């Protein structure tokens, strides 16, 4: 009996810790009213700035957020990014302190809580583990370099909410809008970093070459002296694109950029971050079985804001 009581105490300690974690994260998790009758969630990541789920912002006028304090505060949409399903809102009247970001990276198997506030004052939570850490992955609007998957239940309106660890620190921003309703989260380091250009200029700059490609197997003997077995066959060249200007031709097989092997489209997308816009790039292609190097200037992906 004494042993059983001890078990109860120990389990209570864990239980208390989980409730503490929710309580700790709670004030930085807000309700976001950006579409009719279906509120979503958001996370205060910096003073007066909120990260929300892009897909849950269906209007730019009459945006409001609600905190634990209850009354709606007017919010302004300052940026949105389809690739990560993130949007940044500015809320001048917001006084609640920002969320704490987890310092380490998420580990598969660790306990997590999904926390959202679709019901206004009432905070909601569900428990699970980190089921997978994956990426880069193709999404609606481009490529997301990394994502977390969880088996914690994403209740309706949880998109934009926080995936937290057992200490209440934010591991990621939840969304069901990236992969067919699955509960994913944009890792906190990625989300915080993307939020910076979103808040400053309204979009996330992403490098663009203007090619359509598909991965192909390179026949042995046509690898131009390289060992790489797959490359990207150029099947499309956008008019007035960096690729066209740089001399790429349909039928070229792209094998490397700046010396890094590119075996699939995801690798190339991940390579073309916003910091490469305007920079020169050495593109290695196989043309007629021989290796050629072309100099390109990375462009900015058009249609950036939506």
């Amino acid at each position, binding site marked *: *009996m004494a*042993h*059983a009581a001890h*078990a*109860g*105490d*120990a*389990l*209570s300690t*864990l*239980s*208390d810790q*989980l*409730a*503490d*974690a*929710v*309580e700790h994260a*709670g004030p930085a998790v807000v309700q976001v009213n950006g579409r009719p009758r279906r509120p979503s969630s958001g996370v205060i990541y910096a003073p007066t700035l909120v990260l929300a789920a892009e897909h849950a912002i269906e209007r730019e006028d009459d945006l409001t957020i609600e905190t634990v304090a209850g009354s709606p505060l007017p919010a302004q949409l300052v940026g949105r990014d389809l690739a990560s399903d993130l949007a940044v809102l500015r809320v001048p009247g917001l006084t609640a302190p920002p969320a704490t970001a987890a310092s380490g990276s998420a580990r598969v198997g660790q306990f997590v*809580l999904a*926390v959202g506030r679709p*019901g206004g004052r*009432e*905070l*909601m*939570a*569900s*428990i699970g583990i980190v089921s997978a850490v994956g990426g880069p992955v193709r999404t609606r609007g481009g490529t997301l370099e990394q994502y977390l998957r969880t088996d*914690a*239940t994403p*209740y*309706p309106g949880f998109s934009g909410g926080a995936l937290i660890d057992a200490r209440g620190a934010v591991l990621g921003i939840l969304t069901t809008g990236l992969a067919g309703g699955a509960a994913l989260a944009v890792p906190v380091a990625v989300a915080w970093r993307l939020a910076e250009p979103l808040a400053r200029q309204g979009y996330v700059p992403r490098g663009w070459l203007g090619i359509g490609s598909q991965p192909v197997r390179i026949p042995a003997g046509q690898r131009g002296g390289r060992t790489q077995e797959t490359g990207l066959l150029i099947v499309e060249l956008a008019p007035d694109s960096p690729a066209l200007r740089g001399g790429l031709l349909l039928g070229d097989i792209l094998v490397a950029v700046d010396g890094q092997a590119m075996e699939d489209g995801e690798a190339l997308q991940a390579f073309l971050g916003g910091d490469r816009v305007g920079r020169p790039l050495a593109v290695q292609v196989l043309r007629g079985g021989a290796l050629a190097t072309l100099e390109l200037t990375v462009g900015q992906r058009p249609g950036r804001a939506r």
Partner: protein
Amino acid sequence: MSPVLEATPAAAGWAGLFPEVLHRVQPSIVRVHGRGPAGAGGVVWGPEAVVTNHHVVAGARQALRVLSVDGRAHAARILDTSRRLDLALLEVPGAELVPAPIGRSARLRVGELVFAVGHPWGQPWVVTAGVVSALGTLPVPGRAGVETFIRSDVRLAPGNSGGPLLDARGQVVGLNTMVIGGDLAVAIPSDVVRQWLGEGS
């Protein structure tokens, strides 16, 4: 040796706690056979008293029976029911059951551990775990007004009705009642049951 699958000592420690807490409370959890063939849950409230859901026993065509985990079966009869609260009090004459430790649902916090014991889809004595997802009020379908409910992410199915929602100490903090939209379980708070039984809160 498989470094990936090997549980850490801490995790192994936590894993051992659930069965211990459960073992302590199990004699106070019963299976109620009333309306359906599969049976539902029930919580022992007194030596001869069991609380379950109204919808578990309403319109039962067969004689009510209460089964304890040790396999004993007892005849039972309805003492009182509330359709509005979906609660029923059963009398189990001569049963000498072990009353469950009843917790105060008012003290529950969002995120704290809870677990449910029931008989989902007729599978006997199934335990599911989760956390308190929300505490609040919910409109009752087809009825006027709102009721206080505990919402949790424990996995429930038909057959969990009337069974206990337990906290980490193994105290009954609610009576599992229904599932909304597949992933939200609703329980009647223990304080509401107390109040209905005239125990105050």
